[in-house]
């Protein structure tokens, strides 16, 4: 519990960087697959309009 005392999560430590990078890579892979599948992914936010 001592780790909870008066600390804030160190968001940017190596573990967090690693997770972020993995997420980015997974995202890139999915984007590439999506492009090949020719489907448009639905996003969680409302679609952007030009």
């Amino acid at each position, binding site marked *: *519990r*001592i780790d*909870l*005392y*008066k600390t*804030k999560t*160190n*968001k*940017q*430590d*190596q573990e967090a*960087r*690693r997770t972020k*990078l*993995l997420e*980015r*890579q997974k995202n*890139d*892979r*999915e984007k*590439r*697959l999506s492009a*090949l*599948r020719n*489907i*448009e*992914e*639905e*996003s*969680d*936010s*409302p679609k*952007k*309009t030009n």
Partner: protein
Amino acid sequence: IAQIELPLNQWPDLIQILVNNCTTPNVPDPLKEACIEALGYIVEDIEPTVLIHQSNLILTAIINTMRKEEPNERVRVAGAQALFNALEFCKDQFENPDERNYIMRVICESTQTNISKLSVASLQCLSKIMSLYYKHMENYMSQALFAITLSALDSKDDQVALQGIEFWSTTCEEETDLAIEAQEAAELGEPPDVVSKHYMLGALQYVVPQLLKCLTVQEEYDDEDDWNPNKAAGVCLMLIAQCCMDNVVPHVIPFAEHIGHADWRFRDAAVMSFGCIVDGPDPKTLNQPTWNLIPHLVHMLKTDSSLAVRDTCAWTLGRICERLPQTILQHPSVNDLVAALLLSLENDPRVATNACWAFSSLAESAYDAAENLAGDNEEEPQTYILSSYYATIIQKLLLTTARPDANQNNLRSAAYESIMELLKSSPRDCYAVVQETTVTIIARLEDLLHHRQSSNEKTSGGNYNDLQSLLCATLQCVIKKMQQGDAIQISDTVMSAFLMMMSSNEQSSEVQEDALMAVGTVMEVTDKHFAKYMDSFWPYLVASLQNHAEYSVCAAAVGIVGDMCRTFGAEMANFSDKLMDLLVSALSDQALHQSVKPSILSTFGDIAMAIGPVYTKYLQVVIHILKQASEATVDKNDYEMLDYFNELREGILEAYSGIVQGLKGEDTANNQLEQLKPYLQIIVQLIISVSEDRDKTDSLTCCACGLIGDIVTGYGVSIKNFVQFDSIADLLSQGRRSRISKTKSMAHWASKEMKKINAL
């Protein structure tokens, strides 16, 4: 020895001998104590199934030594400590009301002693029982536990008080988990396994005042590693805020209003109490009290005579910035807050560290607010509330990293982390500062690397490595923020620094991993321009993929291979023979940490998508590996293994999808999908097995739906009969019902493609 021999049934009479020594009259006390201690150690580590048939015997012996009739104090203490370890064995006994009553009576009696160690060990048992057997506690809470733990909270003996607090912290954790489980069960339309009795809510009015009292008993010269009732009370209050949410607020606010007390201990406790409840209650409930407190907190951060109070103010303001961004950003004191935080960066390291964290939260909240204001039309906001201070904040943070005392209280790292957050969360009008910061960070990294080369100093290795990692991570942030043209301009310098970081033989794996991750970012931003670095980067990539001992380095290198596939496309064929070789070797190495293996499988798919039909040369080997991986089984009661199993299957499915897409290719004349046809049954079998798996993740469902779609669009009507299974239809329907939009759209797409071939 027992850990080794008991599971092999090679010491069958051991437990009986130990138990006899604990229960037979006239056994000398030291022998009794040693036997009970030995029993405690054995049950602590042994696989429970080994001793399950002797659990009654063990428990009877342990409880026997704890009773108040036992004259020897040391034996009773050893008994209570052994019981703590044995509690997980007591499932059956806790199901039986008579046995449960007896165990609880002995423990409760043991808490009521003036032998401090016995009281502490017995209270520890109560906390663990609360966590393990919550559902059976109803009768004991009102009759005994409530009074026992409240009295412990008030004890003058710190060790006893700590256990009293621990009991309520554990209760909070249990009830917070139960609330989450109840919500999940409700979403599934099922009743929860265990229902929360809201003991914490009922005890708020008694427990919170005691905790607030503990908050006023600070150590004058606090050692940050010491654990005492003051700190435990702070943590307990944070857990209560998360468990009881809005209900905690009226119990704390009147106390927090003593912020102007003459005694620093009360001022500190008042600020601390508010900081503790910032996370949990609805921000709307906290808005008004926070609004009122902010000017006082800012003023105290600047002027309070007590270091402890300034430290707590900085921490509390940081939490407000993080949890209640709307309140702080709209407050007229926000300018004063920035000024006070800037001033605090020059304060004692513990205050400065909290100021760094406050800046991180403030920057993130300010950026989010600006993004929301800009709506959907802008990728990056033009400006935000911190823009006019931005250059000063960055400059002060850079100075903070270089403070001679920055190694204290994690200050250097906190300052760099804060710089990273400010860089990431910066609007367009701060871009010039981002550029300047890049130059500074590159210069610092080069300076550090050259200094390392010229001096043979090895003693400060840890600090040196940490600094390299921090600079590397900061550079990653700026590169990601840069416009491509600017990134290309600095990429030569940056890459040579990263290569130098990787080149040192004595380099720590953390630094190598950070350097590889940074290289991945350079590749992401510079795209095809990265090709010019491939000759010099290649040997490091190969070495990293072969570094199976430092698996995080290997994992980062596997990620880079995936990035290369997406960056170089068909040109990846120049590298793929060697890379496939290295990836297959890594997979077949039993010594390589299993966490790397799923991403290697996915990377097989990335390579196929990049090089297209040329991939047929690897097909046989890869299919053999994927088939083997599909046959893996795990103990599904082991949650970690279950997670791994799902990740592994995701890797396999991603590999197949990549292969189908790759072999299909862009040129229909060169379509090589026929080569995969003999293996279709294996692939479909895996999809069926995934479909029927109740423990699959949503992400796995998504991948499986994607693969069905790939197969159907790739082969068309010719494989119609291969995919006509109820399980496949079920999977698609599960995907369509998913709450995750990505899975939903994937399942809809695959279902649509399936309908097309069914119509033919």
